[in-house]
């Protein structure tokens, strides 16, 4: 609804929007500032914090003391592993639903969505028990599978909506030219669907990176990703503002950047096409 507006109105809009935007963003900005201060300076009143000297010290300490990069590595493995595994399983399914829709395609899609609505806490003990019995507790492979399963409906759903936008005639033409199903998917569909697949990967990496129910309940030390590592700072004796800030900044920065690129896909992926 872009309309010509008076400069005064535009200035007013700009002022209000920037003010609110900065207030909302402020907590993130503030831990960014604190992460560059010494522990002693980080607990001073805000103005004194700003005046205190800047230092990289906290970033070094976080790594030395707590093996930060091991947890970072776990987060990377869990987020990308679960997304890629999900993609391998979801691409054929989404392809079939988009290009060979049957009577029950819609029902299957809806049913897949409904599995996403199952409250995690309702199945906590069975999963926990299975993890113990299978020796998967505190293992990366177990969590990769769980994170893949909780995001699979979203992956299938997003891919389905992207695939549906690809005109079926192109695929038919490829088939007429004698392309096999495998060739059709690999050489015709995939290049066209690449942007959609990239968005799907992006959103699901973000969701898996930030997942904080299963990662907290199914890991201890070995497989703990950043969500669990940061939660370990919650004990009262661990009140180190500067180090906590540094650890937090490193944990959220990569995802914040990816998130900014995936704004539009977020709506598509999280509302299941209910809002366009």
């Amino acid at each position, binding site marked *: 609804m872009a*309309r010509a507006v008076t400069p005064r109105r535009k200035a007013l809009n700009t002022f209000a929007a920037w003010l609110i935007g900065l207030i909302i963003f402020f*907590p993130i900005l503030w831990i960014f500032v604190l992460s560059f201060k010494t522990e002693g300076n980080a607990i001073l009143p805000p103005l004194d914090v700003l005046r205190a000297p800047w230092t990289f010290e906290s970033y070094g300490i976080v790594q030395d003391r707590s093996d930060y990069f091991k947890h970072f590595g776990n987060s990377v493995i869990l987020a990308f592993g679960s997304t890629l595994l999900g993609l391998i399983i979801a691409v*054929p399914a989404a392809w079939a639903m988009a290009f*060979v829709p*049957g009577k029950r395609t819609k029902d299957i899609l809806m049913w897949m969505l*409904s599995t996403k609505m199952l409250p995690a806490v309702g199945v906590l003990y069975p999963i926990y028990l299975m993890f113990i019995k299978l020796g998967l507790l505190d293992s990366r492979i177990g969590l990769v599978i769980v994170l893949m399963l909780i995001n699979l409906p979203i992956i299938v759903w997003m891919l389905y909506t992207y695939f549906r936008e690809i005109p079926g005639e192109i695929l038919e033409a490829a088939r007429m030219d004698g392309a096999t199903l495998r060739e059709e998917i690999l050489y015709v569909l995939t290049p066209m669907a690449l942007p959609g697949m990239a968005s799907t990967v992006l959103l699901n990496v973000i969701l898996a990176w930030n997942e904080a129910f299963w990662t907290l309940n199914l890991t201890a030390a070995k497989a703990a990703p950043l969500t669990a590592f940061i939660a370990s700072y919650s004990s009262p004796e661990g009140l180190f503002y500067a180090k906590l*800030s540094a650890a937090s900044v490193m944990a959220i920065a990569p995802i914040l950047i*990816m998130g900014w690129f995936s704004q539009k896909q977020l709506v598509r992926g999280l509302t299941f096409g209910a809002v366009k």
Partner: protein
Amino acid sequence: MATQHSRSAARLMMAPAVTLLLGWMLIPLSMTLFFSFRKYLPMRPDIAQEWVGFDNYVRFVTSSSFWPSIQATLIIVGGVLAITVVLGIALALLLSQEMWGRGIVRVLVIAPFFVMPTVTALLWKNMFMDPVNGFFAHILKAVGLTPIEFLSQHTLLSLIVIVAWQWLPFATLILLTATQSLDAEQLEAAEMDGAPWVSRFLWIMLPHLARAITVVILIQTIFLLGIFAEILVTTQGAFGSRTLTYLIYQRVLESQNVGLGSAGGVYAIILANIVAIFLMRIVGKNLDT
């Protein structure tokens, strides 16, 4: 012939996804259901497992922590929904206006959504709401007031603020998407006919956003019913912040009363399904068009 062939191929291609999700849903679900009818205390091998019928279901709802947990859940979910929907509409309408640097403002506004829940919780708990060194405490002291113990004295309100900060971007983004399809000509016509801003908002914008608002409410409700990390990190269920999800978690993993916790889990599943049915209807309708 070709269709027949591609149909069976399609079925084969859907099989892994469908089978996995079916297993992921049915196996744990039937185990929860099974446990919920049994006395099952894994930490107490001296107490035998046995069938107890609906005992666990009755005990879960008659325990003294049940109603407070429902109350805490409703207050948190309701509070967060109210804040995110009202502010989300306001922000979406503001951000759809002409301004300088709209892209950057959008980025600032949606950023909290990408912060992992444990960071969000710790950041608010320590750097902002801590009664000694927190940002708010410093501000209050600077103007001569006594610092407030946010999380222990105004527990639910503090949690609502934390979770609303996290979810406001989601509401804003979806509502912003919906405002983009607003009919500018219709709005202009109404403006020229002398309709004041309030009636333009009430009779044109709000009806247009109605469906997006419903979707925001439904999706957020499903996610908010399950908030866990925010409570684990801030209060661990103390000071009246024990929601239904957290209560079940404590029963199942902390006190390892699996039978009782599983009955609670079944209640949570039923509750989530009631919300889900409405959401699915909207999604389903949209799938046809």
